[in-house]
């Protein structure tokens, strides 16, 4: 019973925050709503006993959202001073939202303990083995070769990106730390005694 209630809670919130993501006028608000949607989707995964996917969603997607945030900040010229100006006006709804998230996490864990929802047949998981353990067992034993090869693909992608974009630029003035440290007052400071009514000649 509790699972069904929790399912409707999460499902409603996922849909509502997804709608808000595309309706929000401010891109920063959009991103925040998106994070809320991800958290609730993770809760849905927890409900069906896929805790690994739930953690992955939070870690990877919410992590990716941080990067997205960065892009929004860099590309869309959002005035953060203006945003922050009204911060005190918002403390109540924001605290409410944070409290709601905390409440959801607790509820999800309770519901997960209660045994999860029974859904349509899926790939059988062995008894007494958690998802993460089962994934690890498969990836690092049976599929180790494919896994390592996938790692090399990522390395090639990185090398390729660097090969195609990295170039030595002429005319730049990089910081020369040794030169900076070795500089002493004798080179940098000159005592001048200008006469009355005369300027300083450098």
């Amino acid at each position: 019973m509790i699972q069904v209630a929790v399912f409707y809670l999460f499902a409603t919130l996922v849909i509502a925050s997804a709608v808000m993501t595309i309706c929000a006028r401010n891109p920063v608000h959009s991103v925040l709503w998106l994070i809320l949607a991800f958290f609730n989707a993770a809760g849905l995964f927890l409900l069906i006993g896929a805790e690994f996917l739930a953690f992955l969603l939070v870690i990877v997607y919410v992590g990716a959202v941080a990067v997205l945030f960065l892009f929004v900040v860099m590309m869309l010229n959002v005035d953060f001073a203006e945003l922050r100006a009204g911060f005190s006006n918002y403390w109540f709804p924001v605290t409410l939202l944070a409290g709601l998230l905390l409440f959801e996490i607790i509820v999800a864990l309770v519901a997960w303990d209660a045994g999860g929802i029974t859904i349509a047949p899926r790939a059988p998981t062995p008894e007494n083995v958690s998802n993460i353990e089962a994934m690890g067992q498969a990836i690092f034993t049976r599929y180790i070769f494919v896994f390592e090869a996938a790692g090399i693909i990522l390395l090639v992608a990185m090398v390729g990106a660097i090969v195609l974009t990295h170039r030595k630029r002429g005319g730049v003035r990089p910081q020369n730390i040794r030169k900076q440290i070795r500089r002493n007052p004798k080179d940098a400071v000159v005592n001048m005694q200008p006469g009355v009514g005369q300027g300083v000649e450098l």
Partner: protein
Amino acid sequence: MTFWETIQAIGPEVILAVGATDLLLLTAFSKNPNVIRTISLISVLLLLAASAALLGPASHAGNLFHGQFRADAFSAFAKLLIFLASAVAIAMAPGFLKREGEAHGEYPILILFAALGMSVMVSAGDLMMLYVGLELSSLSAYVLASFARRNTRSSEAGLKYFVLGALASGLLLYGISLLYGFTGSTVFEDIAIALATPASEGIELGRLFGIVFVLAGIAFKVSAVPFHMWTPDVYQGAPTPVTAFFASAPKVAAMVLLTRLVIDAMGPATDAWRQIIIFMALASTILGGVAAIGQRNIKRLLAYSSINNVGFALVGLAAAGLAGVASVLIYMTVYVVMTLGSFLVVMRLRGADGEQLESIDSLSGLARSRPGLALAMMTFMFSLAGIPFFFGFYPKLMVFDAAVQADLAWLAAVAIATSVIGAFYYIKIVKIMYFDEGGPELTTEKEPVASGLIALTALAVSPLGYLAIPYLETATTEAAASIVQSGPVVPAAPQTLASGH
């Protein structure tokens, strides 16, 4: 199987992976502007070491990693070809890249990674392994295509290749997911068992869709018509050594992968894939022959030539069976030598100021200015055309022979007709070299490595090549025998879903 035995069985891959990552460090930290020469030399040695490792358990260890990786004579033969072709592609490049101002040490390393991916491809016994190997070699190839990044044509080639390659990967993955869904496994053996088991109409249809999509994805990689559109543009735009590489090793890898897939995994569904292969074979030979006639750029012409040749290899594949598979291997072996030789000659065509010449007109009068080069080019062209007594005739003969044995005489007849069309443009090049006047002045710079390789490949495809037939036949028959089963696959009881353990 112990850990050490497994490592030995995947020895070539381990050598390439460890060597390439270490070379990456060397090139990243080296301050020497000529580092590409050192790295090229070490890379060629690594490829030779990997080839030597094929003598060990890598050629007969059998199934590894629960049937996902096959170390058999078939994969060993293909790996040898791939490694040697990659070594030639590395050896021919440093001078060219230096003139282009793009002598980065990453070129040989990316070729090493591509060779690693291809080596995984030809050993794949599982759809996931197949995809990972394919993606590793393709990703390196995309970067290599736009390696001369200051050249707009090269960037364009890389972008086109990348976008169309991603599309093909999507098709392939969709097909893989359908096959997995409707057969219950990604391992080739289990797929074959499932395909041999009769199922309801809906499931049969799903399997058929899976087969079609997987074949379409791989047809893109071998550039068989109708998935060839990228080939001329990419071959023309990519730096010449890279084009030579594209036309050789990846073609072999994709062809061998396709062969293993259709024989091993889709053996029981031969009726389904054979018509697709026959269509691609016919379309490739016809289009490759006809479309090449109007080309004015030698690299474009060789691109159409490679489409044409893939068509002939597919004729052998359509024949299936021991003779068919062996003929595909023979065809690809000789094709690689011919095509690498042609590109080596194209690279030697440089004007007095050292600029690369790519138009077919610039070949005029080559027989008078550079008789040796012209003789080599004539050997390659006659061989590609399949003129008797040149070695290129022999693989065509084997392919047609296999087709006739498999009751596909009509296919062989059509392919012979298109071969005659193709002969037209090959012979036209010989005519331009020997009878036309007034080509541009060519550079007199000496290049011992390239000249040696040209002489070697020209000798191999000259009539002298016939001396190698006994060895080639033994090797290819043994390789083919390791994947072709003698009897038909016996339908087994319905499979339970693989649980992952």
